[in-house]
């Protein structure tokens, strides 16, 4: 009987402190995963690829015909009149977007437990800025 009481007391005392202690241990030892993952950067990269496709299409459209011919085209003229300037702006914004995407990608790959919100946010902003530089998408 005494053994049973001791065992029961021990069991209850362990049960009483096992839960909070166990939770505390779990909190201490659990790896806090980055809320932003490779999926987040994958979404950015797909949006970036879509913007690159639009930019490539613009450049191809405005450079596949001689400038003089384009200027006689009611569609081509307004779109391509400043084609050189526009492509330079696209290239500049593209460089920034590409760098921001690579920075976010590398940060997430190299720091799986650190919050990548700021670098992913910067990548999204650079990609949207790039997209805004493409005539016809504004």
């Amino acid at each position, binding site marked *: 009987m005494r053994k049973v009481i001791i065992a029961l007391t021990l069991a209850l005392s362990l049960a009483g402190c096992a839960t909070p202690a166990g939770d505390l241990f779990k909190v201490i030892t659990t790896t806090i995963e980055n*809320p*932003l993952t*490779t*999926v987040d950067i*994958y*979404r*950015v*990269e*797909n*949006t*970036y*690829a*879509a*913007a*690159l*496709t*639009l*930019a*490539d*299409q613009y*450049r191809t459209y405005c*450079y596949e015909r*001689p*400038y*003089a011919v384009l*200027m006689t085209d009611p569609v081509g003229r307004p779109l391509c*009149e*400043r*084609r*050189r*300037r526009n*492509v*330079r702006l*696209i*290239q500049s914004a*593209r*460089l920034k977007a*590409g760098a921001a995407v690579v920075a976010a990608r590398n940060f997430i790959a190299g720091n799986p437990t650190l919050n990548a*919100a*700021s670098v*992913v*946010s910067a990548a*999204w*902003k650079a*990609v*949207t800025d790039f*997209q805004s530089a*493409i005539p*016809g*998408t504004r």
Partner: protein
Amino acid sequence: MADWKQALEAVNIALGAISRFGSLPGVNMIPYIGVVTTAASALQAGLNAGINVAPYVIAIKDTFTGELPSASQIEALRTKIAELEARIDAPLPPREEGEPED
């Protein structure tokens, strides 16, 4: 044709859901919400212009339905990105007669 329209709609709904989640008081896990929703306009612009950006829309949509991208999908995307970057970054041809300066 209907596939990408449905995909874009799904992406817009998903982005909208994230946006609402991000606007809840005390919830600030995804601070880039504001630009995410505007980024969808690039996809919309491409689709409207008949430019083939559908694969990217569908790829984004799939991430919202729980499908994680495979290593080969990520690799293929990055290869395509590098190819497009090279085309856009290529030097421009010489200025033509009548063409304004930069």
